[in-house]
């Protein structure tokens, strides 16, 4: 396909600017996001592995106590079933100050801190906010938009050579071509994955802002009133103001499976419930669950006193709104299909991180002054920032993992300590890279990343006694995968550190990546 040279030039400029602005944030989002794919095993990995199994009776006891102790929860309360995210059920509701409170069978009074380990949430926060409170989500929404523009412009620039160069990976003296080939092939082959993330990422971060903006513009001011019906399953029902006891929780559990079965969903697994107007004759319960064969789960809403079905949104029988919403969640979080899907997401996530890293390297390489040792200031700054921020966040995440195991072992507060370990080590890495020659910093930080990441399974084994061979023997696939995955990443970082050393010895001297750049 032929393109006008002017178009090509515009889109190249557009692509480099978008990459420049959004590339760092996207690297963090993809590296942390690849790990967040395994948030459920990570939750197990970061909590002391007590073989606690809760039953529906425990859940019933929790619900009864919460409803008795907290009048606000009678209006609206949510609760996870045992084994969904955590082994124990968790109830959550908003108190009179609209603060969310969480209660478990061990803590019926409720507390503002969600139960379970804080590590998965820290990694998730890095993924969707970079760790910046409040504005971080909107920032990442904008980053998703810039990422979308970079995808379109990158695709257009590459279009004339797309098919011819698709599988070309040309190592050799021309290093820029090699990096360009690698950048292109990963970009093109994982393009569908990236389109999904640009669009769903923007929607998940900016949904509310967009709704506020579009409501007066195209929805005649009626969007907010319509959004509940478009996104929830249970209809909004007025209270009857007649007291009536709830039917037992176990009967709701069985009822949701029965209703889903009647709609052709053979193996519906209830995950969590939402209960409104508890104690009233018009109490409504909505049960959301997963069905292994569908894209996204489904939900069943029924009368919480009689079991009469009010509404269903199940795979194969959903309206356009619920089908789209379920698809957005399932495609973004990778919770569909079998065990291959999270691994595919993990690898594509790391591939995405490589895409942004190599993009920065290409930016530097295309500005390199080939005939003189002295390089531009912007190239030097870019090299330092790339090393400090990108390799730094790899060190930081591994440091948080190590802290999550060692701090509780030493009787310290893991939740605060992890944050200090994570953001402190990240800041130190960035500071180190801003001061050292870029190649030296890359070598040293990659070496550090290899060491800290290799410490992850060691800390886990020391603190809990669950060495990875014991996890493997006990059939704890999730624990085993995290420890061995960390070892594999450590080997990866070590070999990258070696490659950096080799580059320092044999590489081009007229470059910011020379051992002593000027």
């Amino acid at each position, binding site marked *: 396909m032929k393109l006008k040279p002017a178009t090509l030039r515009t*889109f190249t400029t*557009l692509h480099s600017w978008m990459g420049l602005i959004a590339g760092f944030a996207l690297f963090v989002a993809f590296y942390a996001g690849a790990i967040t794919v395994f948030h459920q095993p990570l939750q197990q990995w970061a909590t002391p592995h007590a073989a606690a199994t809760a039953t529906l009776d425990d859940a019933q006891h929790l619900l009864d106590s919460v409803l008795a102790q907290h009048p606000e929860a009678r209006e609206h309360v949510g609760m996870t079933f045992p084994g969904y995210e955590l082994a124990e059920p968790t109830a959550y509701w908003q108190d009179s100050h609209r603060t969310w409170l969480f209660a478990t069978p061990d803590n019926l009074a409720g507390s503002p801190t969600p139960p379970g380990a804080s590590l998965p949430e820290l990694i998730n926060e890095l993924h969707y906010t970079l760790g910046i409170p409040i504005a971080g989500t909107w920032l990442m929404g904008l980053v998703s938009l810039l990422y979308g523009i970079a995808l379109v*412009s990158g695709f257009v620039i590459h279009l004339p050579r797309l098919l011819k160069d698709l599988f070309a990976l040309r190592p050799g003296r021309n290093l820029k071509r090699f990096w360009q080939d690698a950048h292109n092939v990963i970009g093109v082959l994982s393009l569908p994955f990236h389109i999904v993330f640009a*669009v*769903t990422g923007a929607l998940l971060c900016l949904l509310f802002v967009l709704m506020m903006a*579009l409501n007066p513009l*195209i929805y005649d001011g009626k969007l907010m009133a*319509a959004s509940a019906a478009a996104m929830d399953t249970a209809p909004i029902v007025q209270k009857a103001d007649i007291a009536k006891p709830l039917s037992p929780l176990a009967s709701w559990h069985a009822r949701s499976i029965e209703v889903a079965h009647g709609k052709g969903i053979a193996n519906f697994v209830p995950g969590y419930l939402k209960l409104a107007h508890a104690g009233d004759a018009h109490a409504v319960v909505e049960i959301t669950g997963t069905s292994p064969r569908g894209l996204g789960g489904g939900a069943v809403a029924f009368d919480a006193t009689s079991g009469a079905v009010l509404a269903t949104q199940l795979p194969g029988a959903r309206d356009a*709104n619920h089908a789209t919403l379920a698809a957005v969640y399932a495609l973004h979080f990778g919770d569909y299909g079998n065990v291959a899907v999270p691994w595919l997401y993990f690898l594509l996530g790391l591939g995405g991180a490589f895409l942004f890293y190599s993009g920065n390297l290409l930016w530097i390489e295309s500005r390199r002054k080939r005939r003189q040792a002295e390089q531009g200031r912007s190239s030097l700054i870019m090299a330092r920032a790339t090393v400090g921020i990108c390799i730094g966040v790899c060190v930081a995440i591994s440091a948080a993992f190590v802290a999550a195991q060692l701090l509780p072992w030493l009787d310290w507060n893991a939740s605060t300590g992890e944050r200090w370990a994570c953001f402190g080590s990240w800041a130190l890495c960035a500071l180190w890279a801003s001061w050292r020659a870029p190649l030296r910093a890359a070598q040293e930080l990659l070496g550090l990343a290899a060491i800290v990441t290799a410490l992850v399974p060691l800390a886990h084994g020391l603190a809990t006694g669950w060495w990875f061979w014991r996890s493997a023997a006990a059939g704890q696939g999730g624990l085993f995968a995290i420890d061995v995955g960390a070892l594999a990443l450590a080997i990866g970082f070590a070999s990258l550190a070696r490659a950096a050393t080799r580059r320092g010895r044999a590489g081009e001297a007229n470059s910011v990546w020379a051992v002593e750049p000027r």
Partner: protein
Amino acid sequence: MWARLSAGVLPGFFLAATLIGLVSWLLPGPWESTVVPGLLAFFPLWIGAICAACRFTSGKQAWGWLSVLALLGLGLLWLLQTSGWIR
């Protein structure tokens, strides 16, 4: 490039919104049934508008065309909505 880019970002926003609005309200059935697909499709449309704006020869042209199209579309949508021809 920045003039064209800003044309994609500002009038492009309104143009993408208008397109979503027209499709959502003109499709058979109530507009409420396409709220979520509409919100989702908004982002690729806006990104498309930004990239399309960069293909104009000048910023003035990009601003002009996108603004006129967005205003016409919004006007049509509001006319149809207030007259009750679509619901």
